């Protein structure tokens, strides 16, 4: 009995010691996401960043790579446990929510010292109430990607660039059993990538200028929704459009089951090219109705209010936003740099085509309740898509709910 007890105590002690190790509380922590697709290349890059920063500033840096999946859960849980990082990468549509919760510190001072001029649109997108809350790292662009072969097989010679052209070509593709446009109607799919670009192309917007009421139930909004509903009636959208959440590599264009997508990222375009052949892939400008518009969001590094090492973190922000780091990151990740004079991040063909869409990219209306609005609007769009209501009614109902929500905060 004694021997067993002694052994148990020994094991437990050893275990405790082993468990309690591991505290490098002296480091500034940065949470990064896999923006560089190639794992090995990404690791090398961030290691270089760590070494470079530590050499220049004599401060320990720890870059922790987190998966994209469930990042809200991870960040939320860590913040609540007081275990969060000092600096984290945030996309522009996430920032207003965190600012509203008072989770971020403004970083205007760091931005003011930028070596190169940053595009005003980017600065704007990363600001709330005229204060900047993230140091820009890159901007994304989405645009139209086509499967040339499917169009050719259906006898469509010119790739459609406007809504009318899309609607004209849809029946021909439908005759071959191919929906022309891959569209995701699921509430899990961000409206920024599905409905909003169409709304913008029709000339409409989500919020009124002062952000107190909704503006999507306008004639423009109805026109955009009607475009989708009409397409669906012609079998121009995938059969499960209302609950569909298309994401590469399982999206319809990559798997050859739709002819085009209107908001694809460069990575998505590459996946398509890898799947159906580069020769069959065409990258075009964003679609046009009344105007040409597409979604493109800047992302930047934010300083958390509960950062344990805020001064060092500011130095880190300055270091990371330097052109040397930003340009290399963009070259490797194929995202676009945030400078005013913007050139494609690399000489890659795909990047050059996407650069043409850059002038038309917008991050949309950033509003702290933007995601809630999406959650309220998306089911109504679904209702219109499955035919239980008309586009006008769907948008009107959604507007009523959204306005009530905006009123009550």
């Amino acid at each position: 009995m004694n021997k067993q007890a002694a052994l148990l105590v020994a094991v437990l002690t050893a275990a405790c010691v082993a468990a309690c190790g591991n505290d490098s509380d002296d480091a500034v922590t940065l949470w990064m996401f896999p923006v560089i697709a190639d794992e090995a290349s990404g690791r090398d890059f961030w290691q270089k960043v760590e070494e470079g920063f530590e050499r220049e500033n004599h401060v320990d840096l720890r870059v922790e790579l987190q998966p994209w999946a469930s990042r809200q859960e991870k960040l939320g849980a860590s913040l609540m446990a007081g275990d969060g990082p000092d600096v984290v990468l945030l996309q522009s549509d996430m920032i207003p929510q965190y600012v509203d919760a008072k989770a971020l510190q403004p970083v205007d001072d760091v931005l003011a010292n930028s070596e190169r001029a940053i595009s005003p649109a980017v600065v704007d997108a990363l600001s709330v109430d005229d204060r900047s809350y993230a140091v820009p790292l890159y901007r994304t662009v989405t645009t139209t990607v086509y499967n040339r072969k499917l169009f050719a097989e259906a006898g469509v010679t010119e790739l459609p660039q406007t809504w009318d052209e899309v609607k004209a070509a849809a029946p021909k593709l439908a005759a071959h059993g191919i929906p022309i446009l891959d569209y995701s109607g699921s509430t899990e799919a961000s409206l920024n990538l599905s409905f909003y670009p169409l709304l913008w192309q029709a000339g409409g917007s989500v919020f009124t200028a002062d952000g107190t009421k909704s503006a999507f139930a306008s004639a423009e909004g109805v026109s955009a929704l009607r475009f989708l509903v009409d397409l669906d009636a012609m079998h121009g959208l995938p059969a499960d459009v209302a609950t569909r959440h298309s994401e590469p590599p399982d999206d319809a264009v990559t798997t050859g089951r739709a002819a085009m997508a209107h908001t694809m990222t460069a990575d998505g375009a590459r996946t398509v090219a890898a799947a159906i052949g580069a020769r069959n892939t065409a990258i075009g400008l964003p679609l046009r109705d009344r105007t040409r518009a597409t979604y493109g969001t800047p992302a930047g590094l934010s300083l958390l209010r509960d950062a344990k090492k805020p001064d060092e973190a500011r130095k880190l922000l300055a270091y990371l936003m330097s052109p040397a780091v930003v340009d290399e990151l963009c070259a490797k990740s194929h995202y676009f740099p945030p400078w005013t004079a913007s050139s494609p991040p690399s000489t890659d063909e795909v990047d050059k085509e996407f650069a043409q869409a850059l002038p038309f990219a917008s991050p949309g209306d950033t509003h702290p309740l933007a995601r809630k609005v999406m959650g309220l609007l998306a089911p109504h769009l679904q209702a219109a898509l499955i035919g239980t209501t008309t586009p006008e009614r769907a948008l009107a109902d959604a507007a009523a709910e959204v306005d009530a929500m905006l009123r009550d905060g």
Partner: protein
Amino acid sequence: MHRRLWPTAVLSLVSLMAVGPFVVMLLVALSPAGAPTLPLRLPTSLTLDNIIHVLSAESVLRWTMNTAVYSVVSVVVVLLSASMAAYVFARKRFAGRDVLLWSLLSTMMVPFHAVLMPSLVVVSLLGWSDTYWGLIVPTLANAQAVLLLRQFIRVLPDEVFDAARIDGAGDWRVYRSIVLPLCRPVLATLAVFVFLWHWNDFLWPLVVARSDEMRTLTVGLSTVEEGNFAIGDLMSAATVCGLPCLLVFVVLQRQLTGTIGLTGWGR
């Protein structure tokens, strides 16, 4: 003849339906990037490239070890602790027994997303963030396992226990020499499930691990499967994750078919 064939026939059908998607998954994992994939066109050639690509991430070995420790330790502790508690709930009477049991069971009725953050707070307060302790220990309280074992211990014949009592055996002896052996099929079943739950767990390991060295396979692979990849990679990751589980199951198969006839317990 006819009577003995129909269970096999029906079961074959059901098995095919159960296995179908899995087979498709395996085929996709083995097909070269860009080959026609789901769901009804067979790939024209099969390669191991995708699986190799997924496995060549730098820390895969470490992640696999973490996951193995996570799963195996959990199985051992859950089986031991749950069977001990189940024995008492099944065979002992004491004040508040059922209230206690159902209080324990009620802990499995709260949705995980609601307790995710408070759980991390508790782990953090203990200083166990980013350690094996923080990863494993909170998942060891498994009320379901207690209920399962309690149900099975309850139906063990009283004669067995009475005989042991007459022989002068104390509770620990009874637990070790009678309850555990007789429950072997259920314990094996439970072992498989607990192993699986832990091996495939994503959200909790994601939230607890800060550094790459503490990640489990599911979390680690999700940092690799980003950006420009073909569906082959995704499926490969799934295959890589799923095969060990199936292996464990196969290994424990024999234990699952135990029988306890009235004439058999003495063996």
